[in-house]
Structure formats: structure tokens, C-alpha cells
């Protein structure tokens, strides 16, 4: 976390749910163990930075990244991981990452 990271507008319990899901996903992607890195940084997003299809409004954002050293996600399923009920795990519900994507969108974030 950068020392002067901005405050962010968020619902604490929903973002806690998001972080738990991302850490859980990272943990489960590394059956043989590994490192999970979580970073926070300030980010100005201008109209030019945005992807044309992005719904993000230009402005100030706090970027949180959760990185794992796991097995990785195959490119052919990468666009499906936000779909409800899509899972690669035998006991998964497919709702963990789906709810994560929805919460971030409802926060007006990306």
C-alpha cells in the first residue's frame, strides 16, 4: 500500500466480501502453495486511458491488485469467469467471482 493512498467510496462489508473472494480464489489457484501479493495505488484515469467500451468515468481511482502465483486461467475461459454458475472446481458454486464483478460495477468502479 502506498503511504498516501486516497480514501475510496465503498461499502465496507461488500468490499470485504470482494477481498475475501479474491484471496480465496488466489489460495485455491495455488494447491502447491505460493505467494499472494496485494497492492493498493492511486490512479488517475483520463478519457484517453479508457478502453472505448469501458463504462468507467474519468477521474481518480484507487487501484487494488491481488496477484497469485497459481495455475493461471486458460485464455478460452477467461471471458467466462464473471458468469454466474461458471466454475472449474468440483465443489464450486460459480458465484464467488460473479458476485465480485457485480459489487465492483455497483460501486461505479471497474
Amino acid at each position, binding site marked *: *500500500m502506498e503511504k498516501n493512498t486516497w480514501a475510496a467510496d465503498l461499502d465496507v462489508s461488500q468490499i470485504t466480501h470482494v477481498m475475501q473472494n479474491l484471496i480465496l480464489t488466489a489460495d485455491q489457484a495455488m494447491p502447491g502453495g505460493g505467494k499472494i501479493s496485494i497492492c493498493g495505488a492511486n490512479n488517475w484515469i483520463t478519457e484517453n486511458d479508457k478502453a472505448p467500451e469501458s463504462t468507467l468515468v474519468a477521474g*481518480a481511482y484507487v487501484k487494488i491488485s491481488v496477484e497469485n502465483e497459481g495455475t*493461471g486461467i486458460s485464455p478460452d475461459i477467461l471471458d467466462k469467469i464473471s458468469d454466474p454458475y461458471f466454475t472449474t472446481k468440483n465443489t464450486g458454486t460459480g458465484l464467488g467471482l460473479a458476485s465480485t464483478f457485480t459489487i465492483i460495477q455497483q460501486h461505479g*468502479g471497474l
Partner: protein
Amino acid sequence: MIVQSILGEGTTFELYLSAHIEKSIATSEPFDVRSDGDEKSMLPELGRVLIMDDEPIIRRLVTDGLTQYGYEVMSAEDGEEALIL
């Protein structure tokens, strides 16, 4: 949320949250729950807590958090184990 992944090397999830700049300038010190007296005083008197969750990492997160606040924490994977405790 932006997801970048390389097979066999790992995955990075990036999320962007709308920043609250005015508030950030007003409170230039980084936010720290432990130094926040109001938050702590809202918690009930210290006691013993039983956590039940089937995910080991969730049990650990909650246990560590409550232990930091001074609670005595026990954890169980399921109802059967909780009853034994």
C-alpha cells in the same frame, strides 16, 4: 475488474474503486483500524467467540482479526466439530 493471467505463472485481478479525494486530503494519515478509538468502543465487551466456516482461510482471517481486538477465538469446520467444542 481486469483479469490478467498466464498459464502456469499466475493471475492478477485489478479492481478500480472511485477515490474520495477531499476526504483523502483531510485525513493525510493512512487509515489504521487499531488507532481508531470510536470503532473499538463500538465492539461489545471482550469474550469468547466461536467461528464456524468450511474454508480454512476464512477461519484464519476472522480468527486473526478478532484476536487482534483481544477476543478469545475458537474455530470449527462444521456443526459437528462446533458441538464438540
